């Protein structure tokens, strides 16, 4: 069964939590305990419709304030698919959480309030989905019950959405669905109140979504640890435990280890007691080589015909995630998988306004939730790829060595 990873984003009061509750409820995926909680809370609040929002808001502060603060992960499955929803808060303060939720997803649901149309936050959510190049974007125009299920209102919002997308990139594929999470229209069950809508329900779209387009990408292998074993069964065993970041590798092929540039042939690909012919993107395996060459944690194995350039500078988009702003020339630790070394912010080229899509050039510092383009000077080559070419080898985080916090997500240009 396929796992579909979804991120949801919406503003405060867009009804995001209710939508997720509705999706689970109508897919018959709530546990008995969750159903009981819904009924109990609905009664306590004296509501006419089921309060399905109580399923997701997990922290005491969230329940008290009635908002989502942190990313929650929700799991449910139907007969054909397994879903993991990263439910992210919508407000600007939580851009970092939105980015985190979206980064681990392949599909984005953006909620729009039918009474209000596109808000600043809708632009931001859309921008983030495109920054992270999610191929599947579904706009849900929610609360249609509050605009009398008006087709005209839906069309005017759909025009706004199409204009926003076209302004960004006319080639992006997306869907727009009129829904009411509260009443259940077009979430899982087709609406009787909107006979004018001939399209698919949200649930149908979720079940038909495809994985992000697979590009031909070069082999990249992140070495996490080196295993040595000397016993009766394993005589002088040496294996490089790690993860295939992208591409694939077969036994017998030649690899190049970076940064040493030493070459060797793959003699064994092992996963526990299984000896494999081949390992592919995402696989955690242990690779053995014909020669003893210099490989340690943080080495990157690649193939000789596709060696990433050893750059000492990196142009990247940063999403700043820390309360403490970054100043020009500040030093941080760059971390990408097992690779980790100091870098310096050499230039702040511009900050992007994700709403007006304009570049602001006068930045001296980078503040929480800023999205900006920078030039980093590296203490050693990173061997990262451009995110557009190879997303899994095109990202990193920055760590503040004083606080040890993860302060930024970096996307390589």
């Amino acid at each position, binding site marked *: 069964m396929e796992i579909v990873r979804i991120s949801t984003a919406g503003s405060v009061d867009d009804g995001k939590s209710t939508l997720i509750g509705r999706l689970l409820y109508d897919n018959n995926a709530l546990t008995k*305990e969750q159903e009981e909680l819904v009924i109990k809370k609905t009664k306590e609040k004296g509501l006419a419709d089921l309060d399905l929002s109580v399923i997701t808001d997990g922290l005491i502060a969230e*329940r008290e304030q009635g908002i989502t603060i942190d990313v929650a992960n929700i799991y449910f499955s139907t007969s054909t698919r397994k879903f993991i929803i990263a439910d992210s808060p919508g407000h600007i303060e939580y851009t970092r959480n939105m980015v985190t939720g979206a980064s681990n997803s392949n599909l984005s649901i953006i909620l729009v309030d039918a009474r209000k149309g596109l808000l600043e936050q809708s632009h931001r959510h859309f921008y983030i989905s495109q920054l992270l190049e999610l191929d599947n974007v579904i706009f849900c125009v929610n609360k249609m019950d509050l605009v009398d299920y008006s087709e005209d209102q839906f069309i005017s919002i759909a025009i706004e959405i199409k204009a926003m997308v076209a302004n960004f990139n006319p080639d992006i594929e997306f869907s727009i669905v009129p829904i009411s999470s509260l009443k259940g229209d077009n979430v899982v069950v087709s609406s009787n109140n909107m006979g004018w809508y001939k399209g698919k329900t949200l649930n149908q779209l979720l079940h038909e979504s495809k994985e992000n387009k697979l590009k031909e990408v070069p082999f990249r292998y992140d070495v996490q640890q080196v295993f040595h074993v000397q016993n009766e069964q394993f005589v002088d065993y040496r294996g490089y435990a790690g993860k295939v970041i992208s591409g694939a590798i077969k036994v017998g092929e030649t690899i190049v280890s970076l940064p040493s540039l030493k070459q060797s042939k793959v003699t064994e690909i092992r996963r526990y007691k299984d000896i494999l012919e081949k390992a592919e993107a995402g696989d955690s395996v242990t690779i053995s080589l014909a020669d003893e060459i210099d490989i340690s944690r943080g080495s990157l194995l690649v193939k000789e015909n596709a060696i990433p350039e050893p750059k000492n500078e990196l142009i990247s988009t940063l999403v700043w995630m820390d309360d403490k702003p970054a100043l020009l020339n500040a030093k941080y630790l760059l971390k990408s998988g097992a690779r980790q070394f100091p870098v310096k912010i050499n230039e702040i080229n511009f900050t992007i306004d994700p709403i007006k899509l304009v570049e602001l050039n006068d930045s001296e510092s980078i503040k929480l939730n800023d999205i900006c383009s920078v030039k980093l000077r590296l203490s050693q080559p990173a061997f990262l790829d451009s995110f557009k070419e190879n997303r899994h080898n095109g990202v990193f*985080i920055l760590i503040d060595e004083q606080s040890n916090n993860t302060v930024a997500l970096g996307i390589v240009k």
Partner: protein
Amino acid sequence: MRNKHLYDLENESIYILREVAAQFKNPALLFSGGKDSIVMAHLAKKAFYPTKIPFPFLHIDTGHNFPETIKFRDYYLNKLDANLIVRYVQDAIDNNKVQEETGKYASRNALQTVSLLDAIEEFAFDACLGGARRDEEKSRAKERIFSVRDDFGQWDYKKQRPEPFMQLNGKIQFGENVRAFPISNWTEEDIWSYILQENLELPSIYFSHKRKLVERDGAYLAYSDHLNIVESDKILEKVIRFRTVGDMTCTAAFVSEADTVEKILHENVASKHSERGARIDDKRSESALEERKKGGYF
């Protein structure tokens, strides 16, 4: 490749386990003898094969465990050739560090925290691997893979580190430690499917058996000396199984004939009850688990 999504989950868990071994000097794996920690131990075996699992197993024994679980723990870890450290809540009680709860609902579950924090200090563990899953409970759903705890073991959701693209940052100050959750993204159904696929052994209490029980508030608890029996309790015998294994005082039994992993998997899905529904300690309030986590509970 028997099952694509279990293979993907296994990939992710192995990656996390290796990151923990590489990023920390002195990690430990929290092992309770329950199904989730058994799956985690099995994944650790896979992650580091053919080397030995590079960290000890730590069990905080409340003294109220099912005897079957303790027996299984010793048998299984012996087979795994793992190094087991046990610390006892009873010691903390004897040293007057914590006070035994009293009354009908007395449980040692919350008391474990003190013994856990003491053990972390005693052995200077900088990371503890836990078998918690995000689908278990609402506040667990907000937990990161690497969860940084301060000197007092406290969890502060406002200080959680973002983990975009699974980039795991385990850098900590002296005195801090990290709880790492390699099976975060597994659901209960995944766990049972994996137990079936990998043919893993489990303590016998997971399977249908006849048992002396106490009926209280509509739930069945195992009859034991640890339970404070009150007048309204009914003592009876039934054929049951346990779906989750905590202390004997706070884990409810299900009436069930399911005596194989396959039957259990089927019955769990059909029942639509969540497994935490059987944990009486979580029913104390809507935020019982979050409150305990803030105080250092794993």
